[in-house]
């Protein structure tokens, strides 16, 4: 293991690539025939998607009674999955917008993929609020249209804030991503010899011509969009946490929820980006663009946000004791030692204990351990939402109505389906559009900018 000097910023792109090499390396996956491995991956993910689709179709026909939900656990896998997937999306915006505003050049290699992941994750997440209503064909009334009694939606409800937050988040993320894609699509349009591809790229690139009169405005709008996306991403998970925090259930009704949810979202999102990027850089040979330094930085972010999440777990217990509220103390003792203690300890060990291994440089910089820790983080973060939603509901104010939630095969089918949907979209994306931003990576090459200006 050679010594690394952290006082010097490592090169964003390694292996002294020229501009043409970058064009070649990034567009190669789009211009070659997919391997067997690719079809295998696509087969697995679309099988999962099919399982999800069947479970969902049965749910839609027979109703949500097929799920394991009961009284009082009326929210279970549907909301757990929703919060989980929205959280996954947050890393993308953090990388593409917040790190852009902080001028972190290492983001260039991973920003495009992270943004795409945001869109796919939010699409997956968006399904769950729609299906958890039980009658999704009436979901149009979630938008501000008066119903047959001329009654409008309740703008003071966190569930309606959610509708606005998630749909705005999806739209703005898409605009941000597409604006970034336009120059790359123009580059691909000029490269391709296929007639069909040419037409598609021409339409999508809108006839962009790399003009510096355009770049001038383009840089400005990138800044503006990053500026809007930054508060937006913080608002989205804040509003998701309001779904819980605005209610009066002990264990939900806490002010720590918004920052705690945002930190958790970034934590799990980074784990997901890291996992998928490790696979992509390997199979598409992009080690010089998505460098080990970048992955190490992501692991550091995961360590930091993991500590924030750990702090929130501790602080919840402290406040439960310090507030002197017996209901509050009961809920937290019940989380750690009660009916769902197994879920709680999965959450704590995956999110707080295993991530401490990232203090060691050797683990931060070796692929297999960091991949395993990333997977564990995602398991832990899924269980965090499970603990918050299910444990709290299963032990409400009235002991006679206490009940234990057990997922049915349909719950699990839809959970698998959500992973299927997400990974199918990701796998299709990596072969249809450039996974790394050609423009941005070129602009951070050593010799790419004029020296004296």
């Amino acid at each position, binding site marked *: 293991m050679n010594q690394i000097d952290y006082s010097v910023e490592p090169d964003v792109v390694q292996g002294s690539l020229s*501009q043409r090499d970058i*064009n070649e390396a990034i567009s190669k996956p789009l211009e070659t025939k997919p391997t067997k491995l690719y079809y295998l991956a696509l087969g697995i993910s679309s099988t999962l998607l099919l399982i999800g689709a069947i479970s969902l179709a049965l749910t839609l*026909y027979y109703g949500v009674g097929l799920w394991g939900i009961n009284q009082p656990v009326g929210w279970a896998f549907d909301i757990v999955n929703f919060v989980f997937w929205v959280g996954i999306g947050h890393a993308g915006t953090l990388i593409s917008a917040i790190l852009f505003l902080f001028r972190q050049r290492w983001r260039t290699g991973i920003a495009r993929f992270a943004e795409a992941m945001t869109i796919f994750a939010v699409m997956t997440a968006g399904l769950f609020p729609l299906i958890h209503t039980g009658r999704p*064909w009436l979901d149009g009334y979630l938008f*501000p249209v*008066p119903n047959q009694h*001329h*009654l*409008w*939606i*309740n*703008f*003071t409800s*966190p569930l309606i*804030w959610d509708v*606005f*937050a998630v749909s*705005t988040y999806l*739209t*703005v993320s898409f*605009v*941000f991503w597409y*604006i970034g894609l336009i*120059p790359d699509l*123009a*580059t691909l*349009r*000029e*490269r391709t010899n296929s007639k069909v591809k040419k037409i598609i790229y*021409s*339409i999508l690139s*809108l*006839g962009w*011509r*790399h*003009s*510096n*009169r*355009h*770049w*001038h*405005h383009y840089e*400005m*709008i990138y800044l*503006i*969009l990053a500026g*809007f*996306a930054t*508060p*937006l991403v913080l*608002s989205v998970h804040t*509003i998701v946490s*309001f779904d819980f925090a605005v209610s009066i259930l002990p264990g939900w009704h806490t002010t720590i929820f918004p920052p705690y949810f945002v930190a958790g979202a970034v934590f799990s999102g980074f784990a997901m980006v890291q996992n998928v990027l490790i696979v992509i850089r390997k199979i598409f040979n992009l080690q010089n663009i998505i460098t080990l330094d970048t992955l190490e930085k992501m692991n550091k972010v995961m360590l930091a946000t993991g500590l924030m999440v750990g702090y929130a777990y501790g602080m919840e217990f402290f406040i439960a004791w310090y507030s002197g509220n017996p209901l509050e103390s009961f809920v937290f003792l019940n989380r750690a030692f009660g009916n769902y203690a197994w879920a709680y300890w999965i959450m704590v060990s995956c999110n707080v204990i295993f991530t401490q291994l990232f203090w060691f440089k050797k683990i931060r910089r070796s692929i297999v351990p960091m991949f395993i820790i990333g997977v564990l983080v995602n398991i832990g973060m899924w269980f965090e939402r499970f603990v918050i939603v299910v444990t709290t509901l299963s032990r409400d104010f009235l002991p006679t109505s206490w009940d234990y939630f057990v997922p049915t095969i349909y719950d699990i089918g839809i959970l698998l389906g959500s992973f299927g949907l997400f990974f199918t979209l990701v796998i299709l994306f990596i072969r249809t559009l450039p996974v790394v931003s050609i*423009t941005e990576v*070129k*602009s951070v090459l050593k010799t790419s*900018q*004029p020296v*004296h*200006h």
Partner: protein
Amino acid sequence: MDDKNLFGVACLFKDPNKLLPLVKKIRELGFKNWDVHSAYPLHGIPKAMRLKWSPLGYIALIFGLSGASFGLFLTWWTMSVDYPLIIGGKPWFSFPAFVPVLFELTVLLASVGTAIVMLFVIFKLPNNRHPLNDTEYMKKVSSEYYGLVVESKDPNFDYDRIVSIFKEYEPSEILDINYQELELKYQPKVFDWKFILFLVIISAATSAFAYFYNNKVLYLPPFDFMLNQFKLKPQESSTLFSDNFGMRIPVAGTVARGEKFYPFKGKPEEAGTKLVNTLEPSEENLKLGQQKYNTFCSPCHGWRGEGDSRLNGQFPNPPSLHTEKLRNWPDGRIYHVIVEGQNIMPSYARLLSEKERWAIVLYIRALQRSLNAKQEDLQ
């Protein structure tokens, strides 16, 4: 060169440092229609080209403020004016609870609006027929070269002079860019009949789908489960009871709560002499009588009691309420018919309270008087 098809003359560099002095030179010579092309934004070029500060910030501000005002108007108007609802004991206009929606609408409109203005208004995209697209020049620029183009429509355009200026800066290549046939001939076809037909088909298909969805699909299983539940609706038959009626009739000989025992069963004449209408013929009582009459009596007796049934002969029409005989009946006699029914008219005792029956009697009296007014009523 006086070739009409010439779009401009271009030069290509491999090193951005060589391009920058040429950019400054071209700007100093006062050219208007020229541009620099590179696969990514080059630092220093906007300054060297003396480009104006981008107005996108102000556009974002305008869109953001309109989003915020729209959000404020929407939440205020729907929640406090159009359908005021008190939720959680908060005031109708509870601003803090509207902030999330307001914020999201601000961000949404500002981002999307600014992007649309930039792409479609400032850049005038989509423009795939620009002469630079699909040329050797653009291919090289999008890969690893940096290019500069002076267009032939520039007032100072002089082919030989520009080429000689270019040569001073040692570019990798100098090339002419020509219009292609298609680019010169192209006319936008917004009003082409095919395009109009396309729009018409799209809108017809959308409307048909919306109609079908709202009027047919939502009434099909499983979407109709609120509409068709496991319960009996009024007037439905049921095999559970021997008489096959879904709606039940009170047990014989019982008196419902709030009702009184009716002592004149089967004795119409006695009811006529002994029962007295204690209800004042006030406007309120007459309104009640009119409403109940219109609901329960008018289907057979007609809106004005003339026996003009609206049931299209499903039942024989009843006699008019304006006959000499009926006008001379005492109030109690009419009341008795409402309670007991007569001929094929059933009893309305279950459907009308005592007060409502008397109010109907008052209204019938008013109807009778309106069609057979006396001389003194006119005064």
